[in-house]
């Protein structure tokens, strides 16, 4: 349908990136031509620069050798045939073969070194990007979209690979071809050259017009394809909903519309091609006609030899060929420049959270797990404060419960403790030391988290539980799974702990995933354990069992529990109730039940199923209050 290379370049146009626009704008001003300069550390060091050199020089030689054949043809006709020196024929013929062989050899060298170069550049870039992505802070990921990052790592990277490996040399070669070809024509007849090339400006114009038109058209195709994909994807993911409402006809109609849009955009693009390609071909062909008429005249007048005219016919394609692709190559260049910008944007991203120069290591053997928040106020970038004046003193081995609706700041507390963000007001201490004075790695190694949204990697259940620990025995993995109440269902799987889970693996229920994540945290053997709504997806009975397991695990560790259910929090040494970032209540379960407020309200709602228990509690409270 359309050249693949073209598509690849086009793939990258609509990523707007996850960054602030002012940042992009300021970068654009300085980047302009500097993109490839900034990228030079990926294609210049060591032997890489020689690869570039070899690739370009070999291509130039191959191009120059290509001119020899028309010359040999001229020689054959003028000097051999017309002069009757047939004895030279074998030499001319062998020369043709030799030239072709040498030319193709140089062509191969060019392609080989260009390929190597491009692949090394892609490797280096990908490696650098991956490393950067490993260390970018949560702050970056809050805004970044996976799809956008992926397109930088794939489409943009390939555009750069293609341009540095081949596009660049070919762009240069364009000038070689036109230059060499014109020079050779000039050497034979400057008049004929000028007459022949009269259609050239029109051809160049048409080539540029075509690029300008076809570019937005391809974007249109991509957009309608992505609309079509969304329609199908939603239809399949929502198949239960669709079928239960018997909405198949509606879905077919919706799909037909998108399908039609896609077809029309492809046909629209092909109409542009149908208009321009034959015209460009005609323009090129017309110069052949002009060449024949004018050149024929010159030959008849004996101002030119037949051999020269024949050479001209070969040479003309030398000049016209590159002009066909001029628009494409220029476009290729701007596209890969844009791709380079987007890649650099990631590479130049500031890492917000990093070790301070005098950071010390927190030794696992010495860590106590004493966590203190002292008057911490925190706001996410470009948002109002998420946490106001928050303080807590979690002694080693204590349990802190956090309760509050979505957006109340519970998760912020634990993210700050992990140092996913830097605190600007107040401070957080681990064993009495400000966490900013500890190395991030050693801090995090002493903390294990079970996140609200469970993430399992495409790997075996065993490796998912062992994530973060290599030197661990199977016994310990099973022990952790047992404590997390995951062992039973894992053992029932045909492959047990070797079952591959994750995106493309076996589908597990939300509750099962959570239990694997809990086992993962248990295996870490941390000083501080954080459970962020870790049992939301399991039913009450299972939660109860998990908690019994956890109670054992929590011994000797400082634990933070975030939960909706009162039943998960009741054993905490201190329960903090948050609302819109403010601490509105804090005490033990028993004490909080004696106070009217959010905690008691939540309790009453949750226990309304069992009015007897709840009312019993209330009565006690009334008695207590007199």
């Amino acid at each position: 349908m359309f050249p693949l290379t073209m598509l690849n370049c086009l793939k990258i146009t609509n990523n707007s990136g996850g960054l602030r626009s002012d940042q992009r704008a300021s970068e654009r001003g300085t980047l302009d031509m500097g993109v490839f300069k900034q990228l030079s550390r990926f294609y210049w060091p060591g032997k890489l620069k020689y690869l570039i050199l070899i690739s370009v020089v070999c291509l130039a030689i191959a191009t120059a050798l290509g001119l020899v054949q028309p010359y040999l043809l001229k020689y054959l006709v003028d000097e051999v045939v017309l002069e009757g020196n047939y004895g030279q024929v074998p030499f001319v013929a062998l020369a043709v073969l030799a030239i072709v062989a040498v030319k193709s050899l140089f062509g191969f060298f060019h392609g080989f070194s260009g390929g190597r170069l491009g692949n090394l550049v892609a490797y280096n870039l990908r490696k650098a990007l991956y490393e950067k992505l490993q260390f970018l802070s949560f702050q970056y990921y809050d805004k970044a979209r996976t799809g956008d990052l992926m397109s930088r790592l794939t489409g943009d990277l390939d555009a750069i690979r293609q341009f540095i490996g081949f596009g660049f040399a070919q762009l240069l070669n364009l000038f070689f071809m036109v230059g060499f070809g014109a020079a050779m024509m000039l050497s034979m007849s400057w008049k004929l050259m000028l007459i022949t090339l009269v259609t050239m400006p029109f051809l160049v114009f048409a080539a540029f017009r075509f690029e300008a038109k076809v570019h937005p058209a391809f974007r249109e195709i991509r957009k309608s394809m992505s609309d079509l994909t969304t329609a199908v994807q939603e239809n399949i993911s929502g198949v239960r909903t669709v079928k239960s409402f018997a909405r198949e006809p509606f879905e077919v109609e919706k799909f037909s519309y998108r399908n039609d849009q896609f077809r029309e955009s492809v046909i629209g693009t092909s109409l542009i091609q149908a208009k321009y390609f034959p015209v460009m071909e005609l323009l090129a062909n017309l110069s052949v006609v002009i060449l024949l008429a004018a050149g024929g005249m010159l030959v008849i007048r004996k101002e030119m030899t037949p051999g020269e005219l024949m050479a001209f016919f070969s040479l003309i394609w030398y000049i016209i060929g590159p002009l066909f692709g001029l628009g494409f190559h220029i476009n290729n260049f701007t596209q890969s420049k844009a791709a380079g910008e987007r890649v650099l944007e990631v590479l130049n991203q500031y890492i917000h959270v990093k070790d301070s120069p005098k950071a010390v290591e927190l030794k696992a053997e010495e860590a106590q797990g004493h966590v203190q928040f002292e008057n911490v106020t925190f706001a996410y970038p470009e948002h109002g404060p998420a946490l106001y004046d928050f303080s807590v003193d979690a002694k080693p081995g204590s349990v802190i419960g956090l309760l509050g609706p979505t957006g109340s700041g519970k998760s912020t507390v634990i993210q700050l403790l992990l140092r996913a963000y830097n605190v600007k007001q107040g401070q957080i201490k681990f064993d009495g030391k400000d966490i900013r004075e500890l190395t991030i790695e050693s801090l995090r190694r002493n903390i294990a988290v079970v996140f609200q949204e469970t993430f399992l990697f495409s790997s075996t259940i065993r490796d998912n539980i062992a994530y973060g620990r290599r030197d661990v025995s199977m016994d310990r993995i099973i022990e952790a799974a047992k404590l997390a109440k995951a062992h039973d269902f894992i053992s029932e799987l045909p492959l047990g702990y070797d079952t591959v889970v994750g995106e493309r693996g076996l589908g597990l229920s939300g509750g099962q995933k959570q239990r694997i994540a809990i086992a993962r945290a248990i295996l870490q053997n941390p000083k501080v354990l954080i459970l962020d709504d870790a049992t939301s997806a399991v039913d009450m009975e299972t939660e109860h069992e998990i908690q019994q397991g956890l109670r054992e695990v929590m011994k000797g560790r400082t634990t933070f529990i975030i939960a909706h259910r009162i039943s998960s929090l009741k054993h905490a040494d201190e329960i903090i109730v948050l609302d819109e970032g403010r601490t509105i209540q804090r005490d033990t379960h028993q004490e909080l039940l004696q106070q009217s407020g959010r905690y008691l309200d939540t309790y009453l709602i949750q226990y309304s199923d069992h009015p007897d228990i709840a009312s019993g509690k209330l009565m006690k409270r009334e008695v207590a209050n007199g």
Partner: protein
Amino acid sequence: MTMPAVNPEKQKRERFVYQDDDIIEKRFNWAQLSRLAIYIKPYARQLVPLLVLMMVLGTVTKLLVPLLLGLAIDEVSGASPSYNKLWTYSGLIAALFVIQWGAGHLRIRYTNMIGQRVIYDLRAHLFQHIQKLSFRFFDKRPAGSVLVRVTNDVNSLQDLFTNGVVNLLIDCVQLVGIIAILLTLNVKLGLAIMVTVPVMFVLTTAVRRRIRRAWQDVRMKQSRINSHLNESIQGIRVTQAYTQEKENMAYFDHMNTENRKAWDRASMLNQAFNPLIEITAGIGMFILFFYGAYLIQSHELSVGLLLAFITYVGNFWEPINRLGLMYSQLLVAMASSERIFEFLDEQPTVAEKKQASELPPIRGDVSFRDVVFEYEPGRPALRGVSLEVKAGQTIALVGHTGSGKSTFINLLCRFYDPVSGEVLIDGTDIRDVSIHSLRSQVGIVMQDTFIFSGTIRENIRFGKLDATDQEIEEAAKTVGAHDFIVKMPNGYDTQVEERGNVLSMGQRQLISFARALLADPRILILDEATASIDTETEVKIQSALKKLLAGRTSFIIAHRLSTIRNADQIVVLNHGRIVEQGNHDELMRYGGEYHGLIQAQYRFLEEIS
């Protein structure tokens, strides 16, 4: 029992497991090709003949040009050249070019018009067929694998249907034309040149096969890298919290290196291809120069015709090369079409009877008579369930995971058909009525609500396509969703997305309640509909629920006892059988499984208070 520790070196390599994609190409298969050809049939009468005409016209004119050029050169370099003849040749060639221009323009137009219509038809056919398929089909496939069939697999046929077929014809005509012309012009030289053709053919097909395999390897490695990248971005928080950055880097470096090596191999083979072709063409050129000059000497050939020969031979390898490419393309198309046909051959397991009647408006009596069902043979999910429900009753289904609650509901909606027994609504077997008339009267609200990308209004309207804006707002008010909707930046016109976090879980659930209410079903099913909602929202929903249930037969699966307690009938399921049945008080007095369940919950709660 001590199991071996995880080997660190092995883990570094196999830290993650990525399954490879489906096989990218298949062997050539005529049956499949002819099945694909059916899609061209509708256009075979009007457009295809025009296309063929344009194609032949374009190719023939193109073939004539070098011959005329050769004759013209002979004319001008001859003993008594004539200007008139030169002008005639030039004019003739110009005319051929103009015809070629027109034919080219129409050819590209028709090609794409036919090709894109065929693709459209194929895609539409596939999608419509998938809509007819039953749950069993979707159960065993991840959504992504279905999606890929409708998008990528169909797209990969696009090339075949547009340029592929046309180019095949053009190339054949061109090849035959060139051979014919060469043999006509000069049999000896023509035959001598023909020697290179088989060489070229063998070379291109052999090298191309290796190139194809090499690129397949690249694609496989690339897709692994992509899977890992995608996953490592999504799981970055876990990676950082567990300080696995460096380990991941080591793992990725291995992957990245493998990928580079595959690329190096493929691009080297790719680069070797052209020189091989060029050298073979060079041999042809050698023969031309050598033998051509000899023939000129013996006056069997003219200088002009030598030029014509050179041009033709130069055009020779192009069609041969493209035919090779075309073959690779065809193999990829084979794999894609096989996957597409695999779906088209799937039959819905829940099929409508030919004489299926419309289900009249439901009163709401439901009965299950000795219903047996199994998802997989030998693993029964329902083992003979019988239940009578009067119109307007609320039934609560209680039981552990896997007890058969959801299966019960799936059968009621006829998402599956029972293995034996029957499901009746108002005394009619639901297999005797049309699926649409059944499902449009049965509403279901699920735990994981699906939100389509679009506005909130459109999402609610999904329940009743011709609902007015007023009806939509009414429904939203009734379920208590109106308040949060009007607070959104664009109110009912706020754009939401499937995975976007514009809406909280609770809000999504409220929207799905509004959707169900708008549909006004006669039978309503709530399948864990409030499980993922936080306590405060749930209180709000409770009152909405009452309104929703009023006057309808309803089935509820829920954890919360307050919802269950008020049901007219509580049905306790265990391992696919109804073990208890009655209202709350009766079952509590009975002291069986239900009583046990309630007691267990009590105990946990007691411990707390």
